């Protein structure tokens, strides 16, 4: 069965995109500095969702997972958004780097003012030390490399899966397995380094060795929650009738487990910095504690306690409604988490509460994401037709 991308859904997505465009225009007219930060938040967040889709597909292949075959077209379709977020990320960096990343300012690397005698008050000794890594050409090379790897492997895995639908046999499965096995270590490295580049380098003086895993966990758990929501939506429209509560139980378990693991990493990072209390490290949390305390707490409750308590019991994971509530919580919560990583570094103390522009841009990105993902879903059969483990997936029972 194929998904039918109805006109009303298309219009809804286009309307959301319209809101986004208006929000971006108003944002650049009123507060361009903040608009760049909101663009980065949303672009990174929706990039993370689609990257999690590709990662899920790759992990399923490498683990030779059978249960997820019936729903694997959903994470595959989520990966289709990556190329759009790639364009967005590159444009944001090219045009917004002065607003977002302090290390891209060239004057901070000069010891003296142009006259050669007066010391430069903006000279930044720490960033000069990091200049070998954080410089614009190398950053651009890295960024292009990340997206080349991610988009490339997404395309390969999707393409093999579509070919398998037509030809069958084990050939495409084995090929996908190999490419997935190559992708995972590459992803392991690039997910960490890209987190340093896109998010950690906003606070370029500060660093945390845990940051890459922490971002990766947020990425994966919000991607799983999105996948869960898309499946529940499709099921409510009478698609994917073979995906039952046993499959959703597994998805729910992963959401539950990785929410806890996210918290584990979040807390490990927080506690070490809190305990050591070194000025150059604590500044990261001090900014967030002093000016963003509400988000700081909401982030903790909605991403840890909420899924922890809601998804704990077996029955909760087998009920679509509860899964949907938990999924919505996680999706919104991790948006806040990205928000908390970007905004304090850009806006510092001048935050002053949420701005409708941020939500407008979020709506725009959500519209584009919905459009691209549903469009990709409608382009192929909703259930892989000739996957060697399809039978195992349909008979999955817990």
């Amino acid at each position: 069965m194929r998904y039918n991308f109805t006109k009303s859904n298309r219009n809804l997505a286009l309307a959301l995109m319209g809101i986004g465009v208006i929000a971006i225009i108003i944002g650049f007219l009123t507060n361009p500095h903040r608009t760049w930060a909101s663009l980065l938040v949303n672009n990174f967040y929706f990039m993370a969702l689609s990257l999690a889709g590709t990662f899920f597909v790759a992990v399923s292949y490498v683990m030779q997972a059978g249960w997820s075959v019936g729903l694997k077209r959903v994470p595959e379709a989520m990966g289709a958004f990556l190329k759009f977020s790639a364009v967005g990320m590159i444009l944001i960096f090219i045009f917004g780097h002065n607003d977002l990343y302090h290390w891209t300012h060239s004057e901070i690397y000069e010891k003296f003012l142009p006259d050669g005698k007066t010391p430069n008050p903006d000279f930044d000794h720490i960033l000069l030390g990091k200049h070998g890594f954080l410089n614009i050409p190398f950053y651009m090379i890295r960024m292009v490399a990340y997206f080349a790897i991610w988009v490339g492997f997404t395309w390969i895995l999707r393409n093999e899966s579509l070919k398998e639908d037509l030809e069958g046999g084990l050939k495409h499965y084995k090929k996908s397995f190999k490419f997935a096995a190559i992708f995972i270590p590459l992803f392991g490295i690039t997910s960490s380094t890209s987190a340093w580049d896109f998010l950690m380098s906003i606070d370029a003086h500060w660093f945390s060795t845990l940051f890459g895993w922490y971002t990766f966990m947020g990425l994966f758990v919000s991607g799983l929650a999105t996948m869960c929501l898309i499946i529940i939506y499709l099921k409510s429209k009478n698609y994917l009738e073979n995906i039952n509560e046993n499959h959703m139980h597994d998805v729910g378990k992963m959401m539950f487990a990785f929410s806890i693991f996210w918290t584990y990493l979040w807390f490990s990072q927080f506690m070490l910095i809190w305990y050591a209390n070194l000025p150059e490290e604590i500044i990261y949390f001090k900014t967030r504690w002093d000016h963003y305390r509400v988000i700081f707490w909401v982030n903790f409750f909605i991403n840890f306690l909420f899924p922890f308590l809601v998804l704990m019991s077996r029955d909760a994971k087998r009920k679509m409604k509860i899964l949907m509530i938990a999924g919505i919580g996680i999706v919104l919560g991790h948006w806040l988490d990205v928000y908390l990583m970007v905004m304090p570094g850009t806006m510092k103390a001048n935050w002053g509460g949420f701005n409708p522009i941020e939500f407008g841009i979020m709506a725009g990105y959500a519209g584009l994401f919905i459009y691209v993902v549903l469009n990709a879903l409608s382009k192929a059969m909703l259930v892989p037709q000739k996957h060697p483990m399809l039978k195992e997936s349909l008979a999955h029972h817990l």
Partner: protein
Amino acid sequence: MSKKTVMAVYEDDYQVVVGAKKLTESGFKIKDVFSPFPIHGIDPVIGLPRTRIATVSFLLGSTGTMLVLLGVWYMMIHDWHIDIGGKPNFALYKNLPAFIPVTFEFTVFCAAHGMFLTFLLRSKILPGVTAANPDPRTTDDQFIIVMEVEEDKIAGIKGLLQGTGCIDIRS
């Protein structure tokens, strides 16, 4: 009429499920199934209720959390203030991040060990207790369905289980 214990011996876990299904469908009540390992999908067939070990685990974990917080509060805050890493505080909640690792560990400790002990107690597997196992081979490579039926129905059971892979019926 007096009841007699009937044991159907199998050598394959899948065949046990098929046999048990056949028996319950014909109205026999299965007392228990002995197996060297958990058999997937047998619980609803022989009418076992859902395990309550998850609830026990939650309660034990919560007990652990509260116990450890009480202990930490008494030892580190109330009885004698201990200044570690320049964080002397006279309130538990202000020092809480430092105590989260131990709270986590003790919660897991209580939940895991408590569940283990609960399971042993509930299954009556304790030192000195004679095993309720009808045949030691069910701890190795055999499976036994145990039933209690009236004497005149034993022949019926034999007929039912013919061809389900049952290798022996003892009564």
